[in-house]
């Protein structure tokens, strides 16, 4: 798999969906990083005489109820989506790795506490409800949003990491490392982690899709990044009032969210097939 997996044309032949996913993700990341230079207009500039314009040559995706350029807002919206998505995944993954490693490696009472008390406490609420509750009482804002979504997100990673560590710590090479006098930290970081990281990467790719969807949901409910910052979910929420007179307001942000979520799902699916051939057999593919 080493070098051949990286070549895009080869990937496109073997798995066109994954290739499409990679291309889309790269496009979204470029939009997110270079938004101020790529956007044709200022995303917050209000222009009331030109409100609710249909798509045209100068305004590719039309304008919204305040006359703001939708295309520019979509490009800037990618920023929020990618930033919040990757922050949530990084934070959840970080907490999940630490908690999962500690529980799985030390086992015993710590493991029982983490597995039975801590994880069940967070699993007793659906993740998005936890996020809604947190933002409702702490107030909106990008930091609170990331924190809120990570609150329910880390458990999935912690469970996976714990199960993997539990299985790996009995292996001979771990025993060998310990016999050579390696510290617990060294054994976990240098010996166990590299061996369990593959399924974690798959989970992170699929988790990215979930985080983007969750961010858009929160913004749609008015619990995301406060206006006038452009975010796809908030754009969809604004569009509801103009379903009759300007349906393009719904269409473009809807497609943006869908493509972003879809591309990470494609990549996640392809990575799982690539890294874990067993799942391919189990799924009957």
């Amino acid at each position, binding site marked *: 798999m080493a070098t051949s997996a990286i070549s895009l044309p080869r990937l496109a032949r073997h798995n066109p969906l994954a290739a499409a996913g990679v291309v889309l993700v790269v496009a979204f990341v470029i939009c997110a990083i270079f938004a101020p230079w790529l956007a044709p207009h200022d995303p917050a500039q209000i222009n009331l005489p030109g409100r609710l314009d249909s798509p045209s040559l100068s305004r590719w995706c039309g304008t919204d109820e305040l006359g703001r350029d939708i295309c520019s807002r979509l490009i800037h919206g990618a920023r929020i989506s990618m930033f919040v998505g990757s922050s949530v995944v990084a934070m959840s993954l970080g907490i999940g790795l630490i908690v999962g490693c500690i529980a799985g490696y030390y086992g015993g009472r710590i493991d029982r506490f983490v597995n039975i008390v801590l994880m069940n406490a967070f699993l*007793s609420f659906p993740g998005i409800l936890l996020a809604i509750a947190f933002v409702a*009482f702490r107030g909106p804002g990008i930091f609170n949003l990331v924190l809120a979504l990570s609150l329910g997100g880390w458990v999935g990673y912690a469970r996976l990491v714990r199960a993997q560590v539990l299985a790996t710590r009995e292996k001979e090479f771990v025993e060998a490392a310990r016999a050579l006098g390696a510290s617990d930290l060294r054994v976990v970081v240098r010996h166990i982690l590299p061996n369990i990281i593959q399924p974690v990467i798959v989970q992170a790719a699929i988790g990215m899709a979930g985080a983007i969807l969750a961010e858009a949901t929160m913004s749609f409910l008015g619990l995301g990044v406060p206006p006038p910052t452009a975010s796809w979910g908030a754009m*969809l929420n604004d569009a509801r009032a103009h379903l009759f007179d300007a349906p393009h307001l719904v269409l473009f942000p*809807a497609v943006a969210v869908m493509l972003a979520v879809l591309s990470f799902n494609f990549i996640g699916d392809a990575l799982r097939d690539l890294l874990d051939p067993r799942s391919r057999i189990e799924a*009957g593919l």
Partner: protein
Amino acid sequence: MLRYVIHRVLYTLPVIWLVVSLVFLLIHLVPGDPIAQMLGEGAPAADLAAARHAYGLDLPLSQQYFNYWKGVVHGDLGTSLRYNQKVSKLLGQRYPYTLQLTWAALIVAVLLSIPAGVHSARQRNRWDDRTISVVSLFGLSFPNFALGPILILFFSIKLGWLPVSGAGTFASQVLPAITMGGALAAILTRMVRTSMLEELNQDYVRTARAKGLNENVVVYRHALRNAMIPVTTVLGLQFGALLAGAIVTERIFSWPGVGRLMIDAISNRDYYLVQGCILAVGLTYVAVNFLTDLLYSAVNPRIRQ
């Protein structure tokens, strides 16, 4: 079976304790003074003190916790500032609507996913299997808050077949149910397909075919029954996502359920009402997980041992 039920009840009790305790703590997450936030800026100090006393926020935390439990057990979740009514009464009015919508969405998801998943498994790797796979991946990725408005655009505005919003008639339920059940249908289709593929390769299926049974009987009476066992678990796990979907769907279709009540309460900073809504949704989730466990053990007796 009775022993299993008691075991599950004993397991569920601490979860309920956890949910109630977490919901109790929510009000203390508010930065600053929740009463000042609720009454708004410029409220006189005397009013603030009176409200704080009325809500019991001037008591020690342990006393507040005790009182909260007392309230929960007696069905008293405080008073909504905005509606000036008991939170439990408001919840009682709205909860049936959310339940109704959730049922409708579940029915939509099951009706779509079982035939699609079974067909996909029988036609493995043919073009219709691939089409169903791609469509379900799209369904999985298409957010319900985008699906809802697009359904309205098409079926209500362009075709004029179904109402845009409201609740009461059967027709007004159709679009919300599809919006809410769509993603679940996609997940279940994939699950049913995988599970069916496994069952169709089992020996008992070969035996059933060998004794000359009709293929439909083999698939639906023999294989599907066993294939549904893992699907039931996923159904329970996905219920949380379904409840979150209810919050979004109710907002799109102005459906008078708990979800809309909660979002309105959040924007009004009606904290006790928000707390009540979250408790109601959280406890529903716990109850559904409990029932799924029981259902799972009923269809799969092996789990009881």
